[in-house]
């Protein structure tokens, strides 16, 4: 029997702005900023019909504060599992995750650590757009009046002010994901987790929402961990891209996109750049290798 004891992310709250805890965190490419999320040898095993399956083979990476960090990998590599572990929805088998909070104050004490935007339809069909966006605030015990006041700007930010009282079945797929994004932002989390939020949408809607996400993110600069299978999407929106290997998921490559394409970023300019093609190919070849490797593994 596998050890299923869930190890959950540890929340580190520094006591002051010059906390000693930050000093040794400065490492690697994100040297200028303290690590917001520090993952050390994160492993996940589970058993399928009694046979152990290694989903994550030890992930060690630091994600900086205000960084847009994207994970790409072949399907089944454990990228969604990693995100769910970060979200506290699943435990890890080994390793540790430290998430540093902002300064300990009354405000940060009630601020949630993370909010997740899920891949599939995750907004509640029986709640209006407004109530869906206000979900996290209701869970925190805010009164109806104050949570409605608080969500209004977020509903406007995603362009749904005319639909605030609508029920989700009256909305298109793209609008539903906007609601999910507004819901996550309204909860004002320390980190935003996004699991292929646009993968179920049509290509044009997806492009428009990517642009909007980029615009909203540039306003808020929240730390984002974003999982996608789209190389193009990863290049467009990320500061860094982590390429994962086939199962068991390990880090194959970490690419500093921010160094190539500074912000604020213009999507058209990025696509027109020859470096875009080079980057795309680099990631594609890495992924292709992994897909073939995992196929050989199945046949062998």
């Amino acid at each position, binding site marked *: 029997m596998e050890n299923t004891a869930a190890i959950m992310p540890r929340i580190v709250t520094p006591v002051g702005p010059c906390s000693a805890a930050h000093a040794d965190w400065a490492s690697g490419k994100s040297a200028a900023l303290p690590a917001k999320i520090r993952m050390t040898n994160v492993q996940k095993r589970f058993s399928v019909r009694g046979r152990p399956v290694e989903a994550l083979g030890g992930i060690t990476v630091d994600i900086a504060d205000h960084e847009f960090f994207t994970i790409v990998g072949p399907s089944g590599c454990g990228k969604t599992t990693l995100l769910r572990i970060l979200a506290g929805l699943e435990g890890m088998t080994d390793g540790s995750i430290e998430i540093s909070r902002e300064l300990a104050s009354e405000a940060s004490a009630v601020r949630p650590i993370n909010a*997740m935007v*899920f891949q599939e339809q*995750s907004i*509640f069909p*029986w709640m209006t757009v407004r109530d869906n966006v206000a*979900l996290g605030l209701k869970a925190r015990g805010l009164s109806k009046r104050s949570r409605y006041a608080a969500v209004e700007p977020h509903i406007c930010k995603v362009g749904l002010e005319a639909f605030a009282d609508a029920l*989700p*079945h009256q909305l298109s797929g793209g609008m539903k994901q906007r609601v999910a994004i507004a819901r996550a932002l309204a909860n004002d989390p320390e980190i935003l987790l996004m699991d292929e939020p646009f993968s179920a949408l049509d290509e044009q809607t997806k492009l428009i929402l990517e642009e909007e996400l980029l615009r909203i993110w540039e306003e808020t600069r929240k730390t984002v961990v974003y999982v996608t299978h789209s190389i193009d999407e990863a290049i467009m929106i990320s500061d860094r891209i982590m390429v994962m290997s086939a199962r068991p998921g390990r880090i194959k490559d970490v690419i500093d996109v921010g160094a190539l394409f500074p912000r604020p970023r213009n999507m058209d300019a990025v696509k027109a750049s020859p470096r875009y093609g080079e980057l795309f190919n680099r990631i594609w070849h890495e992924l292709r290798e992994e897909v073939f490797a995992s196929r050989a593994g199945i046949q062998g």
Partner: protein
Amino acid sequence: MSMQEARGQVVIMQPELGGTRGPSRRQLERVLSVGSPVALLAMWEGAAWLGKIDTRFFPAPSGIFQEFLTLLQGTELLRDVGVTLSRLAIGFLIGAIPGILIGLAVGLFGPVRAIVSPLVDAIFPIPKIAILPLFLMIFGLGETSKYAIVAVAVIFLVLINTASGVRNIDRIFLDVARNYNAGRMMVFWDIALPGALPSILTGLKLGMGIALVVIISAEFVGAQSGIGYMIWSSWQTLQVEKMYVGLMVISVVGFVAAMVLTLLERVLMPWKRGD
């Protein structure tokens, strides 16, 4: 190769004209569904007048209607209908409300499920009317035993359907609730209850069907009033037309109850309406 083939063929497509000519298929179906019961009644009436059927068992519909009008003059029919309706309504509520609440708890919380489900599994298969003698013994011949038997008939169906409704709520919704730190009360009222509503209403509809069966049977043997009592006593005194009036009234009660529940469904679940 003939000339025609060489020239190829042109297929001409034109809008259908059928929609504007004569009654549409839907109109025809509506006429048929009103027509079939009317036709049956007319045949029954005719056969009764012509002496083709035994009017001791199948009195003419006009005779039954006549009896209905006569009974409306008196207080007996209205009292019986009122008594049965109040037994149904009170018993239904006593069964349905705890059925929903316990069902939600069973669906959400493992320990509650472990405690409740063996009891439900053991008691549910008993035909509820079989418990009537026990209830008559415990609660006496008064109204309480009628409420109790209806409540017991309703609670199991509502509980089982509610619990399975909660179990069938998309996992993603519970993940969202966890991710947003929703408390138990919020999960119970804002997620489990609305999420299970479609199943809850199915349970209520099934429960209402069983409740009708149970209350009428209970009134056959264990009551001195109600529609069931009226049917049973008409049979014993061979007042066949009055018995048919009783059957007609139950049919209307069942129909209206189903309609009320369908209306409730539309009001409670606006997101299930396609617009």
